[in-house]
């Protein structure tokens, strides 16, 4: 990631504020939000922008997250660009609406502050909230830091509103670790963003001269065809994600690699795969281990849906063992990300050994030592030592 942008300015922002700036730069017509920790700063910051005339939009104080998504959908229906943000219980509460929005193809962008789900009740971060929304038909992106959060909000609109996609996008930030951590963030100018992201001209909106019914009932004779189109759009989104990333990089000087970023994976014997803030910590560990001459690599998974199956198929023949860090667990099986990666590897024929590390649940730190331990286990695994396929990291007992 390089900062080649000629204009704009640097500011010391937390992740939530970076999201708020990103949203402001996209000029949404309507913002419908309901506060929930640790997303609240987004709600507050945007309210301040509006109160101080630094942002022109209809800011709706909805009475629930379900209503936040209903209102965003209503706004998108009439051709408005809509934004919302939530977290955890709020995301679960709007679950039904996620299906409605994706199924009726409204290109809404939502920030989600990853936070664990009750019970036991806890406000700190893990990715169980968004990963359990896997089948809602939303594109899901995971960011590593504040800069990527701001940039991804802008990219999310370009992606969602692309004619080939017309699918809503959820941008995920790890609760507190990303949302409340201050970093230097480059804020591009409005002119730069306007040049990258043109005004929204929806092709899926009300036209009084050609009235249509939206989000209607589709019987058994037709329903499956709508689902097929959603899947096709997701498949096309893979290419569009790469295009948008390239175009964004050319425009702002920051490239993120599209669906995945490889970090020192050339000649690596073992690699770790992670999403979100854990990648930042892992970068340091990889550098440290490389200095010791260990052939380690890191894969930053940036998109969970659509899932980069082809990438992992390609990676399967290059490495001997792979560790997948899941900040979630599908009780009764394993981490959700690990399952998908294993499925992609299986279709490649050559399958490296995989250990699924369940870590960072409900805000538990994933330390550099934890990550070093994960690499150690991968090396002993390839040397023939028995390792459990799924392990909890940093557990009390």
């Amino acid at each position, binding site marked *: 990631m390089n900062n080649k942008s000629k204009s704009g300015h640097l500011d010391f922002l937390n992740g939530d504020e970076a999201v708020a700036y990103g949203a402001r730069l996209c000029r949404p017509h309507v913002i419908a939000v309901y506060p929930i920790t640790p997303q609240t700063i987004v709600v507050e910051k945007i309210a301040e922008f509006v109160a101080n005339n630094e942002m022109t939009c209809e800011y*709706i104080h909805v009475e629930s997250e379900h209503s936040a998504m209903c209102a965003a959908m209503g706004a998108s229906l009439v051709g*408005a660009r809509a934004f919302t943000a939530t977290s955890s219980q709020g995301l679960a509460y709007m679950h039904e609406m996620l299906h409605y929005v994706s199924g009726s193809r409204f290109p809404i962008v939502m920030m989600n502050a990853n936070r664990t789900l009750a019970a036991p009740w806890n406000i700190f971060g893990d990715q169980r909230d968004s990963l359990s929304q896997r089948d809602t038909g939303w594109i899901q992106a995971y960011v590593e830091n504040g800069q990527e959060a701001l940039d991804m909000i802008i990219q999310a609109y370009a992606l969602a509103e692309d004619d080939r996609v017309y699918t809503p996008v959820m941008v995920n930030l790890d609760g507190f670790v990303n949302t409340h951590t201050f970093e230097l963030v480059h804020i591009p100018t409005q002119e730069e963003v306007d040049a990258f992201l043109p005004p929204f001209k929806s092709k899926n909106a009300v036209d*009084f001269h050609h009235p249509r019914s939206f989000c*209607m009932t589709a019987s058994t004779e037709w329903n499956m065809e709508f689902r097929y189109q959603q899947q096709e759009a997701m498949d096309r989104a893979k290419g569009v994600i790469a295009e948008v990333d390239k175009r964004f990089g050319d425009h702002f000087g920051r490239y993120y690699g599209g669906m995945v970023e490889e970090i020192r994976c050339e000649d690596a014997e073992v690699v770790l795969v992670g999403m979100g803030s854990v990648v930042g910590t892992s970068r340091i560990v990889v550098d440290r281990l490389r200095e010791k001459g260990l052939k380690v690599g890191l894969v930053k998974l940036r998109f969970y849906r659509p899932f980069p199956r082809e990438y992992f198929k390609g990676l399967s023949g290059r490495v001997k063992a792979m560790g997948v860090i899941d900040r979630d667990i599908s009780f009764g099986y394993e981490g959700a990300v690990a399952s998908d990666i294993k499925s992609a590897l299986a279709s490649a024929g050559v399958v490296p050994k995989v250990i699924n590390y369940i870590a960072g649940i409900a805000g538990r730190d994933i330390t550099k030592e934890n990550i070093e331990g994960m690499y150690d286990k991968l090396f002993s695994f390839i040397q023939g030592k028995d390792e459990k396929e799924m392990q909890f990291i940093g557990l009390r007992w």
Partner: protein
Amino acid sequence: MVKAKDLTDQEYLYGHKACPGCGLGTIGRLALKILGERTIVGLPASCMSTVTTIYPQMNYSVPSLTMAFAGTGALLTGMSAGLKAQGITDAYVLGIAGDGGTADIGLQALSGAVERGDDFIYICYDNEAYMNTGVQRSSLTPIGAHTTNSPAGTASYGKKNPKKNLFEIMIAHRIPYAATASSAYPYDFMNKMEKTKNIKGPKFIHIMCPCPTGWGFASDLTVEIGKLAVETGMWYLAEYENGKVKMNVVPKTLKPLEEYLKTQRRFRHLTAENIQLIQEHRDREWELIRERWL
């Protein structure tokens, strides 16, 4: 005042699949004739959405959207905000939802939208039960009615609790305009619809919509039964405007309750004692109406 000869010949709701004798088609049709072609209709899960928006046979010739059960109020908020943000000021945002979709699962979203003062028209058509799912009780089902999940039996006289007063819930919000209406009184309804066009903010009309299928009466009696509901005091026509309630129709004396109850299968099981209980509820409501509004 609305006159039949001034109504447009244009149909905005046509070819729907409602049951014979259902008042719903009339309500949607007349409401849209009053509002015209620059209207966007939002519909939650309901009889209305089920009989009008099954792909590919779309029955509206205005834009429409089918919404999640709980979300009508918030949908209307979003549509209204989206239009405003784009400088579109000459379109109406209309919600049409059933009694369950309004008074039960949709009440939170409706209350939020009214409190925020968003600009929309909301019609709650009240057929007094979840008809679309097979006649289950809602909070707007009247006391004593047999439904499929509040059945009459040896230990039950049907629905145990009286009907929730949605009109007064809206008044408690100090909404700019609220009214009750009935599909049996089309001019009254159209005049109320006409009023909503010139009032900014939320407008709410709670319209009684007798249901031949769910209530158990012949499909040619819809209007008659709608009128009997008003004449027996089981329903009333009123408006809340500028902080005051006006009763539109006040029967000099209420007809005996039995005249209404005996017309419908859902009340057939009631004993004299049960009817006495219902009458006490009715009389108490009318005492409140007389004390406050007459």
